[in-house]
């Protein structure tokens, strides 16, 4: 069972602590995505799991065994790097077989395995080429092949798609997901792109500034974000936030607009500053809506439309409307909210007020 457990893992570079105590468990066979803005420490965390980076404190546990002192090569992991890191002076075949040679696998087995993997990833016609003669997508496949051929317990991906163009990225995303279904290995995947995280992951770990903000299934993160950061990070276009306070079963905006929240079930202190979060899909233009915005721009995509505007207290809002909208630039429109989809957060701590 190739499960991975992190117990209060920390990392400091000099006096700067970049990973500030992370606990999480990736179960066997799970596809786990570490997501967060750049500089949040997600790549460092991955390198700490791989053994390429020493950990300052805490334990990394793979299959129930603490591996803090075990070098990268002996942890039974394989990694795909952002820059692919193919060996430029070796052919594709040599790139694939280098790891097996080091593991002293018999020559005939090496040949058979590399060819199998090459066929699976459709790079078998390229076996005798060098990396510089390959396209970005092909290099990516070779990099993945190099990881697959060693039959590791766990795959680690460090932003593998960020160097590809948008179209190729969607294709490779499906392939990696397909690879996971086929091989069934535990995989940890680092990305800054929340769309990648949402589409591929069994579990997502949202990181910010060296801390784990939330860890859970993609839709749980989407539907029940635990704090403002996760709410804003997951979902595209991002969630709208309105500042105000709760009074008598209703949300009061700073400029005095009142949004009734019947039976909302959030706990709050009287007079507490509260941020209301609402996704663009949960807002609709309505004659008698409690919110008014001035439309600053409209995007018509044919099957759906986005309306951008500012409220009376100068907060920017995005509204998603299915189909084609008749709203035009410069209009003032009223909006109604789907109260079922309202999220409330404590403005100061950022935590959800959900019980």
């Amino acid at each position, binding site marked *: 069972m190739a499960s991975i457990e992190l117990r209060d893992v920390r990392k400091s570079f000099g006096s700067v602590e970049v990973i500030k105590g992370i606990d999480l468990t990736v179960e066997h066979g799970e596809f786990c995505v570490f997501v967060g803005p750049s500089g949040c420490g997600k790549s460092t965390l991955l*390198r700490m799991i*791989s053994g*390429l980076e020493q950990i300052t404190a805490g334990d990394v546990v793979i299959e129930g065994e603490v591996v803090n002192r075990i*070098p*990268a*090569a*002996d942890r039974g*992991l*394989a*990694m795909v*790097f*952002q*820059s692919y*890191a*193919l*060996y*430029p*002076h070796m052919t594709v075949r040599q790139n694939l077989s*280098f*790891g097996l040679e*080091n*593991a002293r696998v018999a020559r005939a087995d090496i040949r058979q395995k590399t060819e199998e993997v090459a066929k699976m990833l459709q790079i078998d016609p390229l076996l005798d080429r060098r990396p510089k003669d390959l396209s970005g997508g092909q290099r990516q496949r070779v990099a993945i092949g*190099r990881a697959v051929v*060693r039959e590791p317990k766990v795959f680690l991906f460090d932003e593998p798609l960020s160097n590809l163009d948008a179209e190729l990225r969607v294709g490779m995303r499906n392939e990696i997901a397909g690879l996971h279904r086929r091989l069934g290995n535990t995989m940890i995947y680092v990305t800054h792109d929340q769309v990648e995280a949402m589409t591929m992951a069994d579990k997502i770990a949202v990181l910010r500034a060296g801390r784990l903000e939330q860890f859970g299934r993609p839709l749980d993160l989407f539907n029940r974000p635990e704090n403002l950061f996760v709410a804003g990070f997951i979902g595209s276009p991002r969630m709208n936030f309105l500042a105000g306070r709760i009074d008598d079963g209703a949300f009061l905006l700073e400029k005095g607009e009142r949004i009734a929240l019947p039976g909302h079930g959030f706990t709050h202190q009287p007079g507490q500053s509260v941020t209301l979060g609402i996704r663009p899909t949960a807002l609709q233009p309505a004659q008698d809506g409690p919110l008014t915005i001035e439309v600053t721009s409209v995007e018509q995509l044919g099957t759906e439309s986005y309306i951008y505007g500012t409220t009376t207290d100068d907060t920017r809002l995005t509204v998603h409307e299915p189909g084609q909208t008749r709203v035009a630039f410069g209009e003032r429109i009223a909006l109604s909210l789907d109260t079922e989809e309202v999220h409330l957060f404590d403005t100061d701590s950022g935590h959800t007020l959900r019980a």
Partner: protein
Amino acid sequence: MASLWSMLTATRGRNGRLHWTDWASYAYLTFGILLMFGPVVWLVVSSFKTPNELDRFPPRFLPYVQETVEVEGFSDPLQVYTVTEGDLAGEHVAQTRRAGTRAEVVRPDAPDDRIRLRTDQLQAVERVGFTTSNYTELFERFTFFRYLFNSTFITVMATLIMLLVNSMAAFALSKYEFRGRTPVLLLIIATLMIPQTVVLVPLYLLVTQMGLYNSLWGVIIPGAATPTGVFLLRQYMVTIPDEILDAARMDKASEWKIFWRIILPLSAPAIAVLAILAIMWRWNDFLWPLIVLSENEKFTLQIALFSFQGEFQTNWPNLLAMTVLTLLPIACVFMFLQKYIATGIASTGGK
């Protein structure tokens, strides 16, 4: 070939007319060629000249040898002259003896008829000819191959050891984080500022203490680590992405294997450049071998060349011939490795 020709004959002027910049650039280039190749060509041509021809003033470019003729009654071939004045004007004669300004000559068809003439009446009959004895003597009278072996052995061993030591040092200094890395690097670079002459005496004492005096290893080992080499290779290795090394570590490669299988092949252009430099340094090295090597048997080509120059006279013909032979290997190295010099410069300049 066609492109080479069109490059060589490129002009700024159109329709066969030369712009003034063409004149200037061709004049400059011609001057450059003369400056660079002139001495070498002069050396090669002179190495085929006889001692007399070398002493001649004013010097002539091509090597000339005097015509000789076999005359009955004389065991050695005799030198042929043309008589410039007197009864025999215009005739070819062979000189049998010469004393001061007087010469005794015979006509080749009448060997018994000795004629006395003044030397200023005689003009040597010459033709362009290459004297190869300068070269053959090297092998007959001097142990040229011994010197060649010594030089080659020193060059090859010193270059190999130097490449190994320098590349390992460069690997450590470029790819490992350790305390004192920068000071070590600075220390190595700082030694560039110390001229060899300053350390000559202590180095000599050290080599003598280690029993390496008058041994080829005494020449090889002190030059094994050069700051230039370490710095050159380090600068190149820094540009190899760390991710490739990480990938190799994930591929279960030991650090030793990473060095041999990843770092060395990827640094090949820089190593080739350093190899060329090392070969030239070692091959042309003079001062240090002169100090360490004392026996004729251990001499390198450069010291052997030096030994042709005596206090009172210099054996120019053999000296020139040996200089040509000494230059040849370096020229060959350059011809075969110049491709790497170009790629080395190109790959360090940017992708």
